């Protein structure tokens, strides 16, 4: 772990009731996911199928991208390709400028977070309003989202009540989630009606039909795209699925893995523009072809952004999403960061893991997340990053039998001192969350010698 990550993990979610609440809230999602999986006889086979479909689709992504481009254009959409984040920002800004659009309603898209789209549009003087309630909360609080599907899960209802009182004029001290949601609904409804353009992501894109598939529980993408005359959808090139038969597999897995719902409230297949409106689709690379070309990490492109690996991860649950320092937190975020993240600190995320494997066990598309974290640790680009002074000392000790024996002897004699001297001073950070082990008694060598 780099010192910067260490620091962030310490401060992003302070210990105490806030951390406990975060841990409980995300683990509740994990439990709902488990219950939904047990209740569905097809669940485990669906995961196998989803994994196979993604592997196939990624292996002929050029074919499916061309197919999608042709069918979406035939349906009346305009299709654009962006090599990186800068090109995405440029294309979207250009489309908005061409229409003179100043007020934009946006529904949740992890890709646009990854590419810093909001900040770029705001700098260009465009009024960008996130309409997913969680996204709106973090936007008003000037924070990044902390979870893929629950962007404000790190905030308590009291935080949100104070924020809404200040920003939306909700009743002072009213922490009722229903009334807070109503306050946001009133404010956002007016913004939906005044919008010049809608920007969305897409959960899937169907190559054979040219359809974008947009999934929400709030209906914000549906409302947002149904009013203004311009809809821009931004998605990574990995979102393709071959046809409707394959789409069914993912729609059955996505909500069950995310929240335990059988399906989200709104699943829209958008094929071509509304009459009198324009639909633009921007397909973004931004490092994805590098992952595609890397056999060890290609399968990370199969991710459907359900958040299940976050909800089960012992590190995410206690550190919170902001500890990760880039758009995608949790195990999938740590696997993708070395290629997709812009910040240097996020490159070291593969070291911020216990490698317990719980993420791989819940992934709906069976990505071997924890194995990929190990692979990153030994990759050329990251080698050495995780090597702490202690690791180097350990390596030296284990390499020399004489040194090892001497160190063992010294430790046995010095053991009582460790607790007294080291605890308050040298090892304060390490021991603040760990107990020293019991004194193990005589060494193996000594015992073996005595029995002979």
């Amino acid at each position: 772990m780099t010192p910067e990550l260490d620091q962030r993990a310490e401060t992003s979610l302070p210990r105490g009731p806030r951390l406990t609440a975060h841990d409980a809230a995300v683990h509740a999602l994990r439990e709902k996911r488990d219950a939904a999986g047990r209740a569905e006889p097809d669940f485990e086979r669906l995961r196998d199928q989803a994994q196979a479909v993604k592997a196939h689709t990624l292996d002929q992504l050029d074919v499916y991208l061309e197919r999608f481009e042709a069918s979406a254009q035939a349906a009346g959409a305009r299709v654009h390709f962006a090599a990186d984040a800068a090109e995405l920002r440029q294309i979207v800004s250009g489309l908005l400028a061409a229409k003179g659009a100043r007020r934009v309603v946006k529904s949740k898209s992890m890709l646009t977070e990854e590419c810093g789209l909001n900040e770029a549009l705001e700098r260009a003087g465009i009024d960008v309003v996130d309409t997913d309630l969680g996204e709106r909360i973090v936007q008003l609080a000037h924070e990044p989202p902390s979870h893929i599907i629950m962007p404000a899960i790190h905030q308590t209802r009291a935080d949100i009540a104070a924020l809404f009182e200040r920003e939306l004029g909700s009743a002072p001290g009213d922490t009722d989630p229903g009334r807070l949601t109503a306050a946001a609904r009133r404010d956002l409804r007016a913004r939906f009606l005044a919008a010049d353009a809608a920007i969305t992501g897409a959960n899937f894109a169907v190559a054979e039909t040219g359809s974008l598939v947009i999934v929400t529980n709030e209906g914000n993408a549906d409302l947002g795209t149904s009013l203004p005359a311009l809809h821009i959808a931004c998605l990574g090139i990995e979102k393709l699925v071959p046809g409707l038969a394959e789409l069914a597999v993912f729609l059955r897995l996505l909500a069950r893995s995310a929240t335990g719902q059988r399906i989200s409230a709104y699943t829209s297949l958008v094929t071509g523009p509304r009459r009198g409106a324009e639909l633009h689709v921007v397909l973004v690379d931004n490092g994805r072809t590098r992952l595609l070309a890397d056999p060890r990490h290609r399968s990370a492109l199969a991710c459907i952004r359900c958040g299940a690996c976050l909800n089960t991860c012992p590190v995410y649950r206690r550190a919170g999403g902001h500890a990760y320092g880039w758009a995608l937190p949790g195990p999938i975020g740590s696997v993708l960061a070395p290629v997709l993240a812009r910040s240097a600190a996020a490159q070291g995320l593969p070291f911020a893991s216990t490698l317990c494997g719980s993420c791989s066990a819940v992934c709906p598309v069976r990505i071997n997340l924890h194995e990929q974290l190990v692979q990153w640790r030994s990759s050329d680009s990251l080698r050495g990053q995780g090597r702490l002074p202690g690791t180097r000392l350990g390596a030296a000790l284990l390499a020399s039998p004489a040194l090892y024996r001497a160190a063992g002897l010294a430790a046995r004699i010095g053991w009582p001192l460790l607790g007294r001297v080291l605890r308050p001073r040298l090892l304060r950070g390490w021991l603040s969350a760990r107990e020293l082990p019991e004194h193990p008694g005589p060494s193996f060598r000594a015992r073996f010698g005595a029995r002979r």
Partner: protein
Amino acid sequence: MSARDELFARVRAAVSHKLPRPAPFEPARRKSDFAAFAAELAAAGGVALGPLGPAALGERVAALCRELAPERRTLASDAALLRLGSGPWQPVPADADPHALADVAIAIVCGALGVAENGAVGLDGREARPRALPVICEHLVILLETRRLVPEMHAALAALPEGALAHHHFTFVAGPSKTADIEGELVLGAHGPRSLTVVGIDAEGG
């Protein structure tokens, strides 16, 4: 080379075209009756009524509208009007500006299909229009023939009506608009409808 061609060149250099397309998934058999559908709809926060015969339909839906939002603007699609006859509803204005629908209290439309495994109803863009109608209203009422129920999403996507994707949108709606973004607590009516009622119509009534 254009940005598009460069992107395709990077993709082509990375892929092998060797993994075959997997055979279609074979789902386990399950029920697709109205009771199974209604149970899942209830779990998604919606309400199922019926199934009713065609004769009782207009009366029952009129009573429902009085319970939900009496004396407020209620619109019914052309197909819904054919089934309902006269009542406390008006036809959807032709080519309405969607912004003019902001005060709609109740929208009544016909569903194209229902999915027993998750309580979702498929709305065809030719029927649920303007696009804004089913999501801008405060209460959504969907009339659904029970013979249009399918067991799961595989069957649903295989049974999309002819031309369903040629009209901008086909939307699966499962329950009212909802959010759990504040401490994970479920709230109905995030942006769209605060309630969803699906009224089953018996097949023999057509």
